[in-house]
């Protein structure tokens, strides 16, 4: 059952990903991408990481994609009539294919470490994923976490300054 579900989701994810690349209209690409992101969120749920799924939906599918869609509409770019060079597509596909092969070989030939951490599905269910993440984030990773806030601040200021025509 779960395997079937996984396969279906995978199919959706791959198809929508291909659509992202192939759609002429950026709006269509953007919508396909949202679909991909949702698929990923589903995977996260299946991986016992509901908090990550929530964040994925909120940040990616919500915030970032909204931003992208707004930008697309703001710039109002006409659909590119000139066809892209076919040799580029071929070459790009070859390179992408090789990337896939490389990674796949790594996945299949590689040896994954034996589970060493304390967490199992039961523990996660018992204590709650959000709490676990929260503990981790505010103890071990407190400093990086705080630094992220600075990063975001910088990004905000940067974005404002860049996008304004005259400061």
């Amino acid at each position, binding site marked *: 059952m779960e395997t079937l579900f996984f396969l279906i989701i995978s199919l959706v994810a791959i198809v929508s990903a291909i659509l992202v690349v192939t759609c002429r209209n950026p709006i269509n690409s953007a919508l396909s991408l949202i679909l991909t992101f949702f698929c990923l969120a589903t995977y996260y749920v299946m991986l016992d990481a509901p908090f990550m799924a929530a964040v994925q939906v909120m940040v990616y599918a919500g915030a970032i994609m909204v931003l992208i869609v707004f930008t697309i509409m703001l710039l109002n770019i006409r659909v590119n009539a000139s066809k892209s060079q076919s040799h580029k597509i071929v070459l790009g596909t070859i*390179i992408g294919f*090789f*990337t896939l092969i490389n990674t796949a*070989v790594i996945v299949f*030939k590689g040896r994954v470490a034996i589970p060493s951490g304390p967490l199992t599905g039961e523990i996660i269910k018992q204590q709650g994923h959000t709490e676990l993440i929260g503990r981790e984030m505010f103890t071990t990773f407190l400093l990086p976490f705080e630094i992220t806030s600075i990063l975001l601040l910088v990004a905000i200021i940067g974005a404002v300054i860049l996008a304004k025509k005259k400061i």
Partner: protein
Amino acid sequence: MLDYVWLIPFFPLVGFLINGLLGKKIKNEAVIGAIGTLAIFSSFIVSCMVLLEMIGLSPENRVFEKVVFPWIHSGNFKADMAFLVDPLSCVMIMVVTGVGSLIHLYSIGYMHGEEGFYRFFAYLNLFCMSMLLLVLGGNMLVMFIGWEGVGLCSYLLIGYYFHKKSAGDAAKKAFVMNRVGDFGFLIGLFTLYWWLGSNHNIWTINFTEIKAASHLLPYGGVVTIATLCFFVGATGKSAQIPLFTWLPDAMEGPTPVSALIHAATMVTAGVYMIGRMSFVFIKSPETMMVIAVVGAATAIFAATIGTAQNDIKRVLAYSTVSQLGFMFLAMGVGAFGAGIFHLMTHAFFKACLFLGSGSVIHAMHHALHKGHLHDDAQDMRNMGGLRKAMPITFLTFLVSTIAISGIPGFSGFFSKDEILWQAFANPYHGNLNYFLWATGAIAACFTAFYMFRLVFMTFFGECRINSKVKEHLHESPLVITIPLMVLGFLALIGGYIGMPKLMGMLPNYFEHWLDPVFELATEYGAAYAHHGEHSSHALEWGLMFGSVVIAVIGIGIAATMYTKNSTLPKRFTDAFPSLHRAVYNKWYIDELYDFAFVNPCKSFGQFLWKGFDVLVIDGVVNGVAGVVMGFSGIFRYMQSGLISNYAWSMAFGVVVMLGYYVFK
């Protein structure tokens, strides 16, 4: 009093500081002059007291060392600010402070109204300090401070009229030539220090310690090298061949400077240094010979040039070079006492001569200035018949001229005759002695000739000065003539303290006085001396008589040529034009040096800069940069600026690298 020996150089230092720092504010010439003169006069008083105390000691105790403060101590090397008082330095401090005081006094009158009066006195005091350090230095390094210090003051004072290009050039030339000498001095010092240190573990540059260790030094060999280097130092300072050309040019300085620095004191430093280290020099027969030969050669060489000069101070300058040659001759034949003796008498009469010439120039300058003429105040061809206008100057000048010419009864006779006799009779140089004596005697003849030529041209005969200004010529003020009279008096009687034993009227005080300093040298010299077949009294009397005759001949020729038959000099120069031209142009030595050293150095420097630095080294550096730039010029085409190209190459690179690791 001996403990306070440091006061001797200290007073002039104070004078220098006061005049140098505050002189500009003081402005009052009398005060400045008084400070300067008092400073050196106080030193003279202290020197007298030191001398008296030294006389009171028994001869073997007449060595006193005083360490004022430690100076450079590093590793084995140790040099203190130390003073050494012994009979030799006593003589020197007496000469320096005595003659120095008189010249300071004289300068008050001579420099009256000059711009930078305070500067002059400050420099003069600084000079006295350096000179006193030189003669009092207890080790070679303190001596070297003085040694370079007097060079510096000489530079400053020659360049006193710095707005004149010739003065600046002369000052630089003097300093650089002195520096060449200093180079020799340093190498000599190093050699001696290193040899004694590494072979006998006596790391010292202290004179008394070297003296104590001098029995360890070998005859010849390394000592020859060291002493020759020292001698190079002496030639630079004392204007001997080959480094003598700066001294005549140094006459660009004010006349008191010429008298003090370039006649009485500084230039004799080389002689003093050899005397101070006589126990080292004597250990090298080769060096002694070189010194004697160079001294004799300089004596005659400079004397010949002196015969053809028309500038009154230049004649005196060449005369100084020549007399210094005599002193070196004395040192070279082992007659250290005689050399120092001549140094002292020469200080008296040559200072007097220079000051006298200064008095003449002063008067001439004054007169010409009154008449608004721009004739050269120093050219003897413009003078003549001055004896009536300036009787005191004339008389003192005459006395000194007689003294330098070597007429019996005057100081120069005793010292010069002693030197000539020693040149003939010394036990060190074998058959070379005849040559040395002959050269010295001929030089003495020339000396008598050109000095009397100078006297005749200046003081006798018709007055050749423009008749308009004749009535403005008059005797210089007292402040100028008093030093002249004192020095003239000394030139007259100064020789009696060193009367040759032969005459037997007075004991030779001077030689006895210096005996403790030089006895070690005589002792070492005995090792290779061959005892004299010459030394008979009759011979000594004969040679003395001969030298007097020679001097009289010189005077006679001068008298004939320049008073009786005034066309003779012209006929003579017409007969030998090229000879006269060569002598007049100082045998073209300056030109030779320019050709051999100065110009090659400059063009070599130019070549190194433009050729090597800029072309070769920078060429290589810039060439490397150029190659890099060239390659980057090619590679820059890879930087298309198109993002997709970068993305492509990145992806490609990642795939390839990843592929390598995955499939290897």
